[in-house]
């Protein structure tokens, strides 16, 4: 009697846990299936409505035509070169902007006066629509690759500096005291405390930065360029090749997603190897 009731309780408990896990699994499946369904629906609807003429294919093109043109451009046109051009300037701007911004933000730890003087300028420069500087940059640095990288750099540098400065401001003063009590010099406090404890903040700026850098590169190409996906979009627009514009949008979306996932991987790598979050960040 008792044995069976125990068994029953056990089974019930087990079933309960199983149910819980089952629910989570089921929900995950529903979410994945739902996402795919929505994507399929959008593309199928797009294709369908342009074919029956409810959406004007002149403006909307259609997924099959976009894919076909993309393929043709990749195989015979300059699209692969344009992709390389655009992603190179975005990545260079991203890397240099993030590094320089991080160094700038961290440098504010060294002097409260220096940080105090710089802060309003940092805020103003952050609010400034840097894309509007594009024409000036093109005049300054030419219509080549460099002006695009500079614009991507400007897009990322201030954000990173602000994030890094936020990290610096939230360093636990007791940790600094600890280091000083061990007889540490300022640069030791900086490298052993300030840098590692600001790292989570710098890392959290990466995702924002990659999108900003790409936007900088594309706008740079919009203004004036001989290569790049941004140039292709503008060119297609001026010759009214709407299909090619859509190809550009499609390629840029894919590029953006790929870069985003690269940054997520980088983030995971950095978090695992260099920081231990402990409730912060």
């Amino acid at each position, binding site marked *: 009697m008792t044995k069976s009731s125990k068994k029953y309780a056990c089974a019930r408990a087990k079933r309960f846990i199983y149910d819980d896990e089952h629910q989570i699994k089921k929900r995950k499946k529903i979410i994945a299936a739902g996402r795919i369904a929505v994507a399929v629906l959008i593309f199928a609807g797009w294709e369908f409505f342009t074919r029956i003429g409810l959406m004007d294919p002149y403006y909307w093109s259609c997924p099959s035509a976009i894919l076909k043109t993309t393929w043709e451009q990749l195989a015979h046109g300059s699209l692969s070169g344009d992709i390389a051009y655009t992603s190179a300037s975005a990545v260079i701007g991203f890397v240099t902007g993030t590094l320089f911004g991080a160094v700038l933000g961290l440098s504010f730890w060294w002097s409260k006066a220096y940080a105090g003087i710089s802060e309003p300028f940092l805020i103003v420069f952050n609010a400034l629509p840097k894309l509007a500087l594009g024409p000036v940059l093109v005049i300054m640095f030419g219509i080549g690759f460099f002006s695009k990288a500079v614009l991507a750099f400007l897009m990322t540098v201030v954000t990173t500096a602000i994030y890094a400065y936020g990290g610096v401001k939230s360093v636990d003063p007791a940790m600094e*005291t600890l280091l000083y*009590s061990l007889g540490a010099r300022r640069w030791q406090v900086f490298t052993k405390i300030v840098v590692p404890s600001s790292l989570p903040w710098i890392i959290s700026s990466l995702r924002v930065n990659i999108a900003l850098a790409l936007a900088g590169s594309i706008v740079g190409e919009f203004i004036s360029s001989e290569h790049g996906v941004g140039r292709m979009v503008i060119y297609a627009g001026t010759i009214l090749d709407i299909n090619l514009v859509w190809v550009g949008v499609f390629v840029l979306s894919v590029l953006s997603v790929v870069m985003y996932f690269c940054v997520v991987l980088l983030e995971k790598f950095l978090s695992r190897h260099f920081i231990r979050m402990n409730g912060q960040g």
Partner: protein
Amino acid sequence: MIKPYKIKVEGVSKTFTSGGKVFPALDDVNLTVEDGKFVSIIGPSGCGKSTMFNIIAGLTPPTGGDVFADGESIAGRAGYVGYMLQKDMLLPWRNILDNIILGLEVRGVPRKKAVGRALPLIEKYGLKGFEKHYPDELSGGMRQRAALLRTLLYDRDIMLLDEPFGALDAQTRLLMQNWLLEIWRDFGKTILFVTHDIDEAIYLADEIYVFTKRPGKIKAKIEVPIKRPRSAGDMTTPEFAGLKSTLLKLLFSASPDGAETAGGDEID
């Protein structure tokens, strides 16, 4: 007449200024500790004990007076004593081993050598197997062990411990006290130990200094004649109870010399 001392705090006072007002934190503090002694310091909250430790550790300059160790003035000289702060302050991004060797690292000892010195201590003092763990994976007691080993490995004759066991539960605390006494016996350090816990002060120390409330001043110095090695059983002896009642009276009765505590008026 003058005994050899390890550390001497001579006429130290400290005032802080905030919003145009002057707050006296310490007022003419004198204490002398012989080599190898274990000294407890008790007093009401905010009596300036931590300020005194910061001064001895060379982190804050005193407004008046001086601190001597081995005959030299060490006021304003950080790194001469080992200092364990109230919170364990283990760096969350370093594993336990890398936390423990932090002091040596700062001093420029090569990593290999530092690890070679840390590992035997880790093994002997109950952290074996946790070297590669991160602080957030350890219990409060383990974290305090690591923090204390870091201070110990920094290898200074004098160690300042500021309420290291304050956040631990009673049983862990007793374990840690015995563990600390073991370390003290093994290494013969001179220890200054701040605590709020009267039992802890008596159980650990050779001498107890009682501070007045702000501004901090030494009200009394009590010798603890309980012989060593001590065990938890000593806490229930009449001798222990007698010391405890003396200390309680010192801490909670109104000061016999009212003139001294009237220093608090300076706050206005």
